[in-house]
């Protein structure tokens, strides 16, 4: 069978000693950045990126993918033991996970999180395998008009789903869209908004913006927290058994529901894993016989969202690999990495580099096994990371970020830009303006604009291309509905008692 031969091709590459080693390094490093609060996969991957340039592309991407899904494992550890999420998508896990730890059931919480992550990670990888080719084939028929519509939908969803407040999300989306217009315009060959600076000719590098908005701002936030509250103490890893048969039974249905839900939300361009975890928690609470136990240490409240988180992460790889469209801040960074290695994700990737794609898919099965081992029996080691003095940790982050940004093209300009975006990011965090839509708009904005203009060039200026093509019409329709719905909801909220 086609699928099996492809997969065995992938495994034959992924199982080479070198690639296994990179898979392990990725998983290990991913767990570490997942555990460390404030340092998520965006920061982790951006910092490591310049070092990976010299690796063979397959090994480099296997490692980056390992970091990507590995961080989703590590994030829950911090949620459970410190009540501070290791990353945004582990916020929900705090609710019941930390309660369980306080009740002396930390081991069970960690175990259900790790097993749920493993279950979802593995099942979702299988789902990628089944779905990727058909979607890539569909993608082959996409013209610039469809790409424009899809990207428009993605940005609408990012803006409206990323936060509680769609208005704030859309603000930052628009800022990102503006930033994306800086640099040379492909259609005319003219440079826009560069103000004569040679560093801006190719646009604002989104990795610089990502490190600024996500890492530098987090360092500032942590500095403030430490200054005001001192260090947080963590709970000990308590409990006699890792997990009892009953607890596993209770977790099983949430695993399945979380996986399906997470994967579907993850595939949606722009949604990402954080909303998936919120949805899953809501679903578990609603379908539970004891909804009152939620928030007081219900194991389902950990199992469902953790599965959803990992499944959504994997799901987000589907549009990235098949259409070349990243759905989250992290996959946007991955897209940048792919391009640096000379690999263009998209419908043609499966035809041009099948060995590459399938090696990565195969490596994800292996990586999930490695991660289960790292995060269950060895979780003690990673928990010790939380005892690291924060001052030391964050000054290291600062040093690595500066080094990473500078080494990309040896431009001190980029370092200044990073610091500026760090300060902007700090204030955005303080006022609850989400950074992810800004970053995604910066990455996708250019693609969207080019799609629009290519479509109009090819149609000789006729706007009807966007409504006469069925896929296009459907995508734009969904975007319009979600925009109107979320706006009316948020305006309704402000409008007074309802």
């Amino acid at each position, binding site marked *: 069978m086609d699928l099996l031969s492809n997969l065995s091709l992938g495994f034959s590459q992924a199982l080479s000693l070198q690639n296994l080693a990179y898979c392990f390094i990725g998983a290990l490093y991913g767990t570490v950045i997942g555990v460390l609060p404030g340092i998520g996969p965006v920061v982790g991957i951006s910092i490591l990126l310049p070092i990976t340039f010299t690796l063979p592309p397959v090994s480099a991407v296997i490692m980056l993918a390992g970091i990507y899904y590995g961080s989703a494992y590590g994030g829950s550890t911090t949620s459970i033991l410190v009540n501070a999420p290791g990353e945004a998508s582990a916020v929900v896990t705090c609710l019941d996970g930390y309660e369980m730890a306080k009740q002396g059931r930390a081991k069970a919480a960690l175990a259900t999180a790790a097993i749920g992550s493993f279950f979802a990670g593995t099942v979702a990888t299988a789902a990628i395998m089944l779905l990727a080719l058909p979607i890539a084939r569909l993608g082959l028929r996409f013209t610039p008009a469809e790409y424009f519509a899809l990207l428009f939908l993605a940005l609408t969803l990012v803006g409206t789903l990323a936060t509680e407040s769609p208005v704030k999300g859309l603000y930052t989306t628009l800022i990102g869209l503006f930033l994306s217009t800086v640099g*040379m315009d492909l259609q005319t060959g003219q440079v826009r908004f560069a103000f004569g600076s040679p560093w801006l000719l190719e646009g604002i590098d989104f990795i610089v913006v990502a490190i600024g908005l996500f890492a530098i701002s987090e360092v500032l936030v942590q500095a403030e927290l430490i200054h005001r509250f001192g260090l947080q103490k963590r709970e000990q890893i308590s409990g006699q058994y890792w997990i009892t048969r009953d607890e596993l039974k209770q977790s099983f249905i949430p695993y399945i529901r979380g996986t399906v839900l997470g994967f579907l939300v993850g595939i949606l361009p722009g949604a990402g894993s954080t909303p998936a975890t919120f949805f899953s928690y809501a679903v578990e609470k609603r379908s539970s016989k004891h909804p009152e136990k939620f928030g007081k240490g219900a194991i389902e409240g950990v199992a469902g969202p953790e599965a959803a988180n990992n499944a959504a992460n994997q799901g987000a790889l589907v549009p990235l690999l098949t259409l070349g469209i990243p759905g989250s801040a992290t996959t946007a960074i991955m897209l940048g990495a792919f391009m640096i290695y000379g690999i263009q994700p998209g419908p043609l990737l499966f035809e041009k580099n099948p060995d590459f794609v399938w090696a990565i898919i195969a490596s994800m099965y292996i990586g999930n096994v490695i991660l289960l081992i790292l995060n269950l029996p060895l979780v003690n080691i990673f928990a010790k990371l939380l005892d690291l003095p924060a001052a030391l940790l964050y000054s290291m982050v600062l040093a690595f970020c500066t080094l990473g940004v500078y080494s990309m093209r040896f431009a001190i300009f980029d370092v200044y830009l990073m610091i500026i975006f760090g300060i902007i990011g700090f204030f955005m965090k303080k006022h609850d303006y989400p950074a992810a839509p800004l970053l995604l708009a910066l990455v996708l904005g250019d693609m969207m604009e080019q799609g629009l203009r290519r479509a109009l060039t090819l149609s000789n200026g006729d706007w009807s291309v966007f409504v006469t093509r069925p896929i296009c019409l459907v995508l734009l329709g969904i975007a319009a509905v979600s925009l109107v719905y979320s706006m009316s909801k948020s305006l309704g909220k402000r409008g007074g008692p309802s």
Partner: protein
Amino acid sequence: MKSFDGKSFWVFIVAAAILSGSGLGSPAAMAAGEGYPSKTVTMIAPSKPGSGFDTTARAIANTLAAEKLIPVSMPVVNMAGSVPGTAQIVLRYKNDPNMVAVMSLTGLLNYATGMSPYSYKDTTPIARLISAYYGILVRYDAPYKTLQDFIRELKEKPGETPLSGGFSDDRICYGALFSKAGIDITKINYAAFSGGTDASGVVLEGAAKALVTSVDDVIGLLEAKQLRVLAVSGTRRLSGALLQDVPTFQESGVDVTVENFRYVMGGPNMPDYAVKYWQATLAKMVKTPTWQENLKRYRWGDSFMVEGFDRFIAQQQAMVSDVVEKLGMKKK
């Protein structure tokens, strides 16, 4: 005893600082570059890792090392793209024998559009190394049989005969070709993509009528009989079963040749001995089996040229500037 007065000491220090600052090294090495190269020679790839410039630069450095053609090491340094890259090369490496870089037709385009203030004359071109040739490609089942068929349709209905291709040097090809064929090229609808592979999608789908790009970029689509080449841009036909029967633009009745050539250059006023050294060394390099392997692996066409390269590049700059003018791409 006064063997050392303070004043001459400072003169010496300043002179040494100027000399080392300008990269000339010790005065001894100045004498016609005896013993050159004795220091590390930097190879600059003015683009991101993984780009065409980067691949070329690394292939050169690796071949020189593998074939033991140079006695010094040659680290590859990436710079942020051809425009800032050229600026840094011009400003930092005046008179410097210890830096070489790769550049291409894109560099001439940057100057022509006004994106870069520096022309090839501000650097020291050393040798042409490799070339890629463009093709006018259509969908395999398209009605056009020859380049003239396509030109006829483009003349009649420029609005409904859109083209696609890369955003950079591919424009030079269609601009040069179709303006020579007597078409007002500002009327042509050209959808620019980041590269030829990307641009092929709209041709396969039917939204664009022809693709203009380096033939090598889409060889897979030719093999798969999804695309067909109407004509190629070189002075001679290309080799290989797929391409040997495809006529050139000239054979198709339009007297134009275009090629995307990559060349090696030094900084402004690179010393003569260094230029000579690299011309000789590269001439040796292109004959080595390691280099031949690279040519095959990356599908590069060998177009090594030292003799007459300065004339060639001047001609190319004039052609590119003319096309840019006609396309209306000059920066205002």
